[in-house]
């Protein structure tokens, strides 16, 4: 008989916590608490990614989601009210319809998903398997994620860097360059 994999209980616990935090964020009217819970949500998903062996993704999620974006949301929150306006009841029904339709479509698609950890699933076979075999000979870098990111998919990463630069440029052009002048205008 196959032994029971106890680590999957950790996955379920983390997913349950994600769900609880998500519901709490939606129900909260206090923006400060909502921003803090979004940081908690990111940290929980980072822990979950570690449990799924996606350490690089977990690292990024913890640094960007739980760290920087919480600070940026707090900075944005200081410019607006501390409490969210209550949403009208009519909008609840429209949102519920959209959520139910999307959820039903996702549940319908579950049947076509490969089993968790299936070695023959498209994500593990073909290209992913190829990278694992060829990286030691062609790039000779122990971390295959880095090899794929910077070497095999170097063009993609170049594009991502340009996207980040464009995002920063957009913020600078829209909100001013953050010099002394902008501070005086914003400070009032």
């Amino acid at each position, binding site marked *: 008989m196959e032994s029971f994999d106890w680590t999957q209980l950790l996955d379920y616990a983390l997913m349950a916590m994600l769900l609880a935090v998500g519901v709490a964020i939606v129900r909260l009217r206090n923006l400060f608490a909502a921003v803090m819970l979004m940081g908690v949500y990111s940290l929980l998903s980072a822990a979950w990614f570690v449990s799924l062996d996606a350490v*690089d993704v977990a690292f990024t999620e913890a640094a960007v989601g739980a760290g920087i974006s919480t600070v*940026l949301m707090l900075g944005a929150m200081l410019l607006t009210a501390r409490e969210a306006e209550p949403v009208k009841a009519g909008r609840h029904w429209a949102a519920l319809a959209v959520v139910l339709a999307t959820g039903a479509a996702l549940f319908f698609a579950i049947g076509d998903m490969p089993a968790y950890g299936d070695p023959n699933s498209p994500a593990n076979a073909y290209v992913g398997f190829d990278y694992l075999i060829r990286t030691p000979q062609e790039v*000779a870098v122990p971390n295959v994620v880095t090899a794929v990111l910077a*070497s095999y998919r170097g063009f993609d990463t170049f594009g991502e*860097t340009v996207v980040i*630069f464009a995002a920063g440029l957009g913020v*600078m052009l829209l909100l001013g360059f953050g010099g002394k002048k902008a*501070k005086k205008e914003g400070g009032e």
Partner: protein
Amino acid sequence: MNPHLVLRVVSKLLIPIIVIFGFYVHFHGDYSPGGGFQAGVIIASAVILYALIFGMDAAREAVPAWFVRAGSAIGVLIYGGTGFVTWLLGGNFLSYDMLDPESTHHAGQHLGILLVELGVLTTVFSVMVVIFYTFASRAPDIPEGEW
């Protein structure tokens, strides 16, 4: 007495460690999780922590706004420049093996990955700090009671 004395002392101890850890994540990216992107975010978070504890003016003196403004473009130039160098050496764009064609253990790949990740680090660090500076300079100062 300053009400944030504990925060100041702890962050003064932590900020150098955070920056060193960021550079470790970058230079060790070939062997362990992480790379330029994560390193850039970690180093930017050190600057943001400094700005939160010691105020925007002190942070602007340590990391000037012109520095991060230029850095966001320089990072893209480092990445593209690496590709351009491999091009001039006779390879395709971003074919790092051209950086050290004699090597038998792909030293060119290591060097190329480190260089492009350095470009990613520079852009990510600069853009994160730029976004924080622009947001923070618009926000009114946090009142004492709200800490």
